[in-house]
C-alpha cells in the first residue's frame, strides 16, 4: 500500500474542525462527512498526511468541515487538482470529493481520464441526482422524466450510469454507498483508501430540499447490499451486470475490486520512486546534469 497510514486508530473527533457544516438540516452529506472522519480515524491517518480536494457545489464544501489539508477548487476540477497534488507528494493520502454535477457533468472528462490514468486516490461522489447549490436543476444522474427547475416538463435526457462508466474506464475499485447506512459506507471508505489505485465511491446522498423524488425513504425502499447476494467483486462482468440494475432494486456495496491491480501511475512514474517531490531540499540541476544536457546541443 502506497498510502502512508499509521497503525493506531485515532478518534474521529480529531478530524472535526471548529467550523460546523452549513448544509441544510437532514442533508445526506452529513453522513458522508461523519463516515469519512470515522474511516480516517480507524485507519489512524495523521491529519497533516491527508489532502482532501473538492470541486464546487454543496458537497464540495466538505474540505472546509474536515480537519486536514484541503483545497476547495473549481467546479468539476477536483480530480486534476488532486492528481497534481498526488504527483507532487505521493506520500500523502489524497481524497477527492464532490457532487454528481461536479464529477459527472462539468468534470466528466477528468473523471474518465483519472480512472484510465489510475492515480492512487479515493474519489467520493455525493450523488443526489440534482444540482442543489444552484437551487434544483437536472443533473447527469437525474432520472429521465424527472421534473426539476430546468426541466419542468420532465427531464427528456438519459440518466448517466457512473458505475458502468467507471468499470468501462478501467477503474480498479468501484463501489456505491448510501449515506443512510453509515457502517456499510465506512467499510467502503476504509477499503477504498487502502486500495493501491484509483477508487470510486458513488454515494447516494439525498438532497432534502430540491430532490423530492429520490429521498432517503425512496432509497431505503430500494437499496440492497451486493455482499448479501453473494456478488463476486473480483468478477468484472458480474459487476457490469449489477451496475445495470436500477428501479425497484438498486445495489450498493463493492461492485468491483481488481484482484491483481497494476501499479498506479504514481507508483510507476520513474520520477516518483523516492520521497515526495515536494520534500526536496535542494532544487535545480546538479552541475554534472546541466553539463550533460547542454552537451546534447553541441
Amino acid at each position, binding site marked *: 500500500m502506497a498510502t502512508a497510514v499509521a497503525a493506531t486508530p485515532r478518534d474521529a473527533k480529531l478530524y472535526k474542525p471548529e467550523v460546523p457544516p452549513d448544509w441544510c438540516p437532514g442533508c445526506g452529506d452529513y453522513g458522508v462527512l461523519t463516515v469519512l472522519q470515522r474511516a480516517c480515524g480507524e485507519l489512524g491517518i495523521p491529519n497533516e498526511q491527508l489532502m482532501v480536494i473538492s470541486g464546487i457545489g454543496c458537497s464540495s464544501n466538505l474540505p472546509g468541515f474536515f480537519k486536514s489539508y484541503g483545497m476547495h477548487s473549481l467546479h468539476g476540477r477536483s480530480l486534476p487538482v488532486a492528481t497534481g*497534488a498526488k504527483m507532487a507528494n505521493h506520500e500523502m493520502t489524497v481524497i477527492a470529493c464532490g457532487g454528481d454535477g461536479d464529477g459527472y457533468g462539468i468534470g466528466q472528462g477528468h473523471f474518465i481520464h483519472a480512472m484510465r490514468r489510475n492515480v492512487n486516490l479515493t474519489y467520493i461522489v455525493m450523488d443526489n441526482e440534482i444540482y442543489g447549490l444552484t437551487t434544483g436543476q437536472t443533473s447527469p444522474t437525474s432520472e429521465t422524466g424527472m421534473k426539476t427547475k430546468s426541466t419542468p416538463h420532465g427531464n427528456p435526457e438519459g440518466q448517466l450510469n457512473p458505475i458502468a462508466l467507471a468499470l468501462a474506464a478501467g477503474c480498479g475499485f468501484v463501489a456505491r454507498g448510501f449515506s443512510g447506512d453509515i457502517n456499510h459506507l465506512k467499510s467502503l471508505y476504509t477499503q477504498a483508501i487502502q486500495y493501491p489505485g484509483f477508487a470510486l465511491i458513488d454515494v447516494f446522498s439525498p438532497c432534502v430540499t430540491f430532490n423530492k423524488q429520490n429521498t432517503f425513504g425512496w432509497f431505503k425502499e430500494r437499496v440492497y447490499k451486493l455482499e448479501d447476494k453473494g456478488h463476486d467483486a473480483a468478477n468484472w462482468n458480474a459487476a457490469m451486470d449489477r451496475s445495470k440494475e436500477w428501479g425497484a432494486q438498486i445495489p450498493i456495496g463493492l461492485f468491483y475490486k481488481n484482484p491483481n491491480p497494476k501499479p498506479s501511475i504514481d507508483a510507476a512514474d520513474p520520477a516518483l520512486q523516492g520521497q515526495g517531490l515536494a520534500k526536496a531540499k535542494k532544487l535545480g540541476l546538479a552541475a554534472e546534469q546541466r553539463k550533460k544536457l547542454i552537451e546534447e546541443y*553541441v
Partner: protein
Amino acid sequence: MENEIMVGIGGAAGDGGASTADNLALTSARQGLHVYVYTSYQSLIRGGHSWIRLRLSTQMVNNVSDQVSAMIALNQDSMDRHLQELAPGGLCIYNGDKVKPGKAPEGVQLCPLPVFELAGKDALPIMQNTVGLGALTGLLGLEFASLSSVFEHTFKKKPQVVKANVDAAKAGYDFAVKTYKKISNPLGRTGAKLAMVHGNNMIALGAANAGCKVYCAYPMSPASGVLHWMGAHGPSLGICVRQVEDEIGVANMTIGAAQMGVRAMCATSGGGFALMTEAIGMASIMEIPVVMINVMRGGPSTGLPTKQEQGDLNQAIGASQGDFQRIIMAPASIADCYTSMEEAFNLAEKFQMPVLYLSDLLMSEGHMTLETSFLDREFKIDRGEMVFEDDGKGQSYYRYKDTPSGVSPRAIPGVPNHLYVSATDEHDEDGVTISDVYTDPVVRKRVVDKRERKMQGVLAALPKPKLEGPADADTTIVTYGSTWGVVSEAVERLNKEGIKCNHLSVKFLVPFQEKEVTEILKGKKNIIVVEMNKSGQFARHLRAETGIAATGHVRKYDGEPFEPKHVVNGIQECLKGQKLVETGSVEPGWRTPHPPGPGVLSTSSTH
C-alpha cells in the same frame, strides 16, 4: 555585420529539409559560427512548402536578415518559388537530375549536381540532400571535417550510415569546389563553443535548472517542444511529466502540484491558454505559485497554428474574472527564454501568484546558437517565505495572514499543526470562506487589499527597463517580447544611416513599470511601437498604463516574422508622418496557390 550569409533550404514537408538545415547549423556551430534559423511552414505533415532560412555569422544573431544569398532547392517548387529572391553573388544548389533551373538573377550562380553519379544509382532519394549539403559546405567555405563530425555524432550507433553520408557529402563537396565558384566572403572559424538550441528547449532546460518538478501539458503547436523535452528528460531528472486530457486539466493539475510545495509549470498556445483561464484565477485567489507558458501563434481560434503573432497580450491581461494578481512577462529572445525561467519561478514563489509567460512561435521554434558558458550556470533559487517543518508556531498560523507585504508564509501540506484549506471562494486569513460560511464586507475588502498589496512588492523586485542605443535620440522604438532582435538590428541600421533613434524593449507587462517607462519616454518627439498584431495590443497597453500615446505604429500580422527591412521602412514612414504602417511579406515565394476545386476560384491567390 559583414561576415555573414543567409542560406535558404526549400522543399515540401517530408523532403528532409529540416534535417539538412540541422546538419548545416551544427556544422557551422562546430566551427564557432553563430547561427539563427527560422522555418516557415504549413500545418501539414507531408507536402506543401517549407522554407528554412539560416543566418550564419561570426557574431551572435537573433533574427533572420532581409535576403537569402545561397539556397538548396530540394524540389522544383522551391526552385520556381525562390530563385528570383537570391542576392547578387549568391548561388543555388539543386539536383540536376530532377530539378529544372529557372533563369538566374544577375550575378547568381546556378549549381546543378549530378546526384545519381555522385551518390550512386542505388542511393536513397534522401541522399540528394546530403550531396547538396556537402556542396553547400564547400561553396560557403565551411570545413568538411565539421560536417563529417556532425554525421558521426548523429548516427554514432550506425557506422555504415555515417560512412554512406560522409561519402555522399564528400562527393558533393569535391564536385562543387571543383566545378563552381565559392562565395566571395567565406566564413571562417571562431573560438566560440556553441550549443544549437531552440526556445522551447530553452524554456524546458531553464525550468529544470530552476527546479521545476512537475510539468503538465496537452500537445499544442508551437508549445509541444517543451513537452517533448520534458518527456525525454523528466524521468532521469526526477521531473514528473503528465500529458493531460485537456488544458483545463493541465492548469488544474499544475496548480494542485504547486500547492503541495513543488515548482510546477505548464505550457500551451492561445487556444489551450483560453481553457486555462478559470484556473489562473484559482491560482491567484489561492495564492499558489505556478509558471504558465503561452507560446503565441496566429489567432484567433485555431488561427495560424504554424505562424508567428504577438496577439495574445489582451488575452493574458484578461485571463480571469475579477481582479486577479498575476505577473505577465515576455522574454525578448531565445537566450532570454532560458534566463527568464529563473526570474519566473522566483517571482511566482516569492509573491505566491501565477506567472504568465508569453513566448511565441518565433522564439519557441526558432533555433539559434548560444555559448555553452552562457547556459552552464546555476540558477539562483529564492522560494520566498515558506514553512517546511513544524516550527511550534502552528497555533497562530494563518495561511492567508494579513501582512504588511501582503505575502503570507506558505506552509506546505504535510507539515504538522499548520492545517488549512485553500478555497476558490473568497476567504479570511484562516482560509474560512466568505459568502458560504459567513459574510463580511469588511473582511472581503481587507483580503482583496492584502493580495493586491503584493503587486507593489513585485514592482520593487523587477529589474529596471533599459533603453538601448543613443540615450539622447528624440525617437524611441518601443517593443515587447520577441521583436527585440529584429528591431535592435533595424535601430542599429537606422543610426548608421544617420537617423538617430533608440529602443526600449518592455519585458514585464503586468505589473507595468509605469514610472520607469514614463521617465524613459518623457519628452520624446517620436514614440514608435513595433508589434506583431493587427490592433496594436501593446500600444494600447502602453497607453493604458502610462497615458503615453505612440506617435507611430509599425505592425505585421501576416504570419511571417519581421525582417529588418520591414522595420526600417516602417520607422522611416512613421518619421515622415505616417501614423500606422501595416507591413507584410509580399515576395511571391511566400505564397502557395489556393487548391482548385468545385466552386473555388484558383485565382484567389492573386487577390
